[in-house]
């Protein structure tokens, strides 16, 4: 057994902190983008306009059957080609995450919207509200409240997923940890430390979700 040196973590802390900030920032932007696009997809699926609903459903099912890494590769290759200039791995990764997570958020929201009792929609119609007014004032506020815990859980999963930007060498927490691990030759210490940091953040998040659930249940 080689002797372990955890001091290497201390000296590379500023570098790792930059990586962690990038991970959190990417998670934050992807959650916002994913929820916005996911809501649009859900509305399209439930709109009752057949071509729109079919396209949205096709998109969600396509994205949900391919691995995230493949989607990251797709956009790493595609975005510069479409724009005609290099954009850097951050933006192509962000686009990949938003488009990927939107499909999952859309599934969560569809379940949330369908959990709102049918009578609510009829009541809205009978008071003379239009489709968008019913969505905006009656269905979505209630649906959002029901699905907040699941949305946060998906956010935690998304934070874990951001570690996959490692495959395009974007310097998030995972990539910086691995750079330190290799250059310092301290693989065990660094990967155990990375696991610990991810665990603390995600576990804290899941405890918060559990509290939220308990409070909503009462």
């Amino acid at each position: 057994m080689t002797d372990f040196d955890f001091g290497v973590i201390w000296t590379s802390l500023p570098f790792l902190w930059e990586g962690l900030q990038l991970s959190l920032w990417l998670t934050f932007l992807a959650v916002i983008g994913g929820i916005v696009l996911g809501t649009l997809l859900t509305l399209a699926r439930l709109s009752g306009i057949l071509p729109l609903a079919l396209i949205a459903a096709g998109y969600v099912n396509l994205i949900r059957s391919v691995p995230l890494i493949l989607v990251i590769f797709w956009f790493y290759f595609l975005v510069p080609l479409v724009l005609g200039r290099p954009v850097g791995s951050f933006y192509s990764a962000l686009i990949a995450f938003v488009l990927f997570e939107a499909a999952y958020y859309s599934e969560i929201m569809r379940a949330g919207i369908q959990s709102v009792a049918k009578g609510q929609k009829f009541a809205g119609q009978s008071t003379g509200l239009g489709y968008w007014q019913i969505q905006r004032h009656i269905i979505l506020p209630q649906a959002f409240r029901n699905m907040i815990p699941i949305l946060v859980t998906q956010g935690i999963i998304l934070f874990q997923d951001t570690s996959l930007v490692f495959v395009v060498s974007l310097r998030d927490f995972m990539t910086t940890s691995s750079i330190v691990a290799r250059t310092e030759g301290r693989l065990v210490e660094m990967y155990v430390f990375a696991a610990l940091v991810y665990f603390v953040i995600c576990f804290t998040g899941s405890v918060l979700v559990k509290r939220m659930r308990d409070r909503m249940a009462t």
Partner: protein
Amino acid sequence: MNYNWNWSVLVTEPYLDWLISGFYWTISVALVAWIFAFSIGCLVGIGRTLPNKFIAGACTCYVELFRNVPLLVQMFLWYFAMPEALPEEWGRWVKRDMPNPEFVTAVIALSLYTASRVAEQVRAGIEAVPKGLAAAAKAHGHGVAQTYRYILLPISLRMVVPPMTSEFLTVFKNSSLALTIGLLELTAQSQQIAEYTFRGFEAFTAATVIYVLIALVATVAM
């Protein structure tokens, strides 16, 4: 957008062989990992619902530990850190003599991670069985093992088939993470073809279509 299409690269040698071998490794890793994940996951999921506080606590720790660390970190821990932390002779064996190290490590990491997710589904299924049924079994003089065998498991395992199907599909998708430790599965092969031929569109489309077909077949089969 200027792009010269050339779908024929996909059927040219050696790229067709690369795709086929990538497909083979994706399927192998996913299926072997699923068998372990399902077995371990069922045991841990049942364990969490047992009246024995020690077993239930240990199983809860397992689930929380493996669910809250990204699969990529787990993959690296098993591949890079584990051989260093083992006693010297074992570590040397793992590094030098273990057959198919990437495959074995990917299966270990993927099984243990997926098991924690399977365990959650199994636990939710068992807890969804109305309390009166277990109480009735107890009143009949059934022991804990008999209650699980005849009442709780037959009901709950039937209930968890739909979420289990989606976990089964997730194993195929997550097997792509094995590329980070050098296993040339489907995603890695398509990326490699893209790099060699500059035909990213064609290569990634091929991989996407194969993953969609796997998902369709798996959904129909379950």
